């Protein structure tokens, strides 16, 4: 069965700031859509908004997955329908093992819980395929993982959950050359096995060269300003975006600094106080 994700005239705001200003995009099974553009111009916002992050407000537009309006669906319902988001910055869930997390996620999509044997066989095979540490299943989700391990763990989760359409947000950043190849191989294998459709955000032609995009799009200032295929990816890799700004007479959004988040803590210097 062919699956279709259709985005129509999508406008999205974050904290009252308009980020997406009318995005149209259709992704079908087996297609690989390269999504490029300068930082801070809406690539991640598009993926987060499709998946339903509560901080991203939909101002206008529609998103359909297999002709079902998903904007009125909960995040978990979108995931269960077959969408998957591999995050640019995967979260750490201390105290929850990868095994428990994945089992719960797999079972959420099933009427009957997955057999322990099948689960273990599946996770072990995928751990091996991605050259991850053998004890991964028993480690807490992304806790103490290196940047590259976190990214591979996103792919591991995807391979276990087998979505219809995957959205990969800079999945290649933080990976060394060998790991990029492993991830690309895993994506290609899943695509050939299941007809996985993909939206892939990356800045690197090398990664796109491995996964062979069927379509390419460039987002500038919240709009897709140019579309093409693998050739467009190569041109951007060679020439950057300046030629686009000149040809289309557009300007990219300047990157705002991310707000820094500090962890809270207290440190009581009682003895110092006692000693005056």
């Amino acid at each position: 069965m062919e699956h279709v994700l259709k985005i129509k005239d999508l406008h999205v705001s974050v904290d009252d700031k308009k980020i997406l200003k009318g995005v149209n995009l259709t992704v079908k099974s087996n297609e690989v859509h390269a999504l490029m553009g300068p930082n801070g111009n809406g690539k991640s916002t598009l993926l987060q908004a499709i998946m339903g992050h509560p901080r991203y407000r939909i101002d206008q537009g529609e998103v359909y997955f297999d002709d079902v309006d998903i904007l009125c669906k909960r995040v978990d319902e979108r995931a269960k329908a077959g969408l998957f988001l591999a995050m640019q910055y995967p979260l750490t869930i201390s105290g929850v093992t990868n095994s428990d997390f994945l089992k719960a996620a797999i079972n959420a999509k099933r009427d009957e819980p997955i057999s322990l044997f099948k689960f273990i066989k599946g996770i072990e095979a995928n751990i091996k395929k991605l050259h991850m540490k053998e004890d991964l299943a028993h480690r807490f989700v992304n806790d103490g993982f290196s940047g590259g391990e976190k990214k591979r763990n996103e792919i591991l989760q995807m391979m276990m959950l087998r979505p219809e359409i995957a959205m990969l947000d800079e999945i290649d950043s933080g990976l060394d050359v060998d790991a990029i190849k492993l991830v690309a191989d895993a994506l290609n294998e899943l695509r050939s096995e299941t007809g996985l459709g993909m939206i892939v955000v990356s800045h690197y032609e090398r990664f796109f060269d491995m996964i062979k995009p069927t379509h390419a799009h460039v987002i500038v200032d919240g709009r897709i300003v140019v579309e093409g295929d693998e050739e467009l990816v190569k041109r951007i890799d060679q020439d950057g975006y300046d030629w686009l700004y000149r040809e289309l007479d557009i300007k990219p959004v300047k990157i705002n600094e991310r707000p820094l988040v500090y962890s809270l803590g207290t440190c009581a210097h009682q003895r110092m106080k006692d000693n005056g």
Partner: protein
Amino acid sequence: MVDYLIKDVDSRHLHLNRDVNYILLVNDDLKLSLELDGESHLIILNQASKDIRIQNTGTLKKDAYLKITYIDLSAHGLDLSSDISVDEGASLEVVLKILVATSKQVKMNYVNHKAHSSVLIDNSAIVLKNGDLNLRCTGDIKKGAHHSASHQHTRTLTFNEVKRALCIPELLIDEDEVEASHALSSGAIDEDILFYMQTRGLDEKAAMRLLIHSYLMLDEKIDQSLMDKLEKQVDEICMMY
């Protein structure tokens, strides 16, 4: 896997002075004193159906090892004080799993008394509506306890309308050549973590269940019937949220 002996505590005073692997089921106020060498594992499980006070004092002798776990999932009040001194080459691991639906006070004081001693503390608390937690945890490295370590990690998960979730992770260090750290995280469930879990298909309830389990369930395997009982208690808590 540690082979624990389950022991109903029927006395208000208990003194342990040799290697022990006990799960102590506590139903009333308890004064527990420890004077241990060798390797010991203790799990202290509050089963009381009323407010109680647990006072735990002790000494770990040279090169001894003790892992002590306090579990309190009761709906009643608790006043827990734990004060243990660690001798040369000895290692102390402390785990606290606590559910706070009423007033609970925990005062921990672990002293690296001599050189090459080690203290590792891992506290987890869930503070429910009307819960009032006062947790003070002190790692104290004395002069002369060189090449010692004192690390503590506390995390509390709070729900709406808690009265208080006060945690003070404290380090008192009187020696230069030591390793010490304290970390504290406290607050409601992170919106981004919840979103991350939901993107994998877990609804809010299932995500919360996994998180609450991660705070309150033991990592190690113990007696199955006791594990089942704890699991049931945690599930009941999850049902409320």
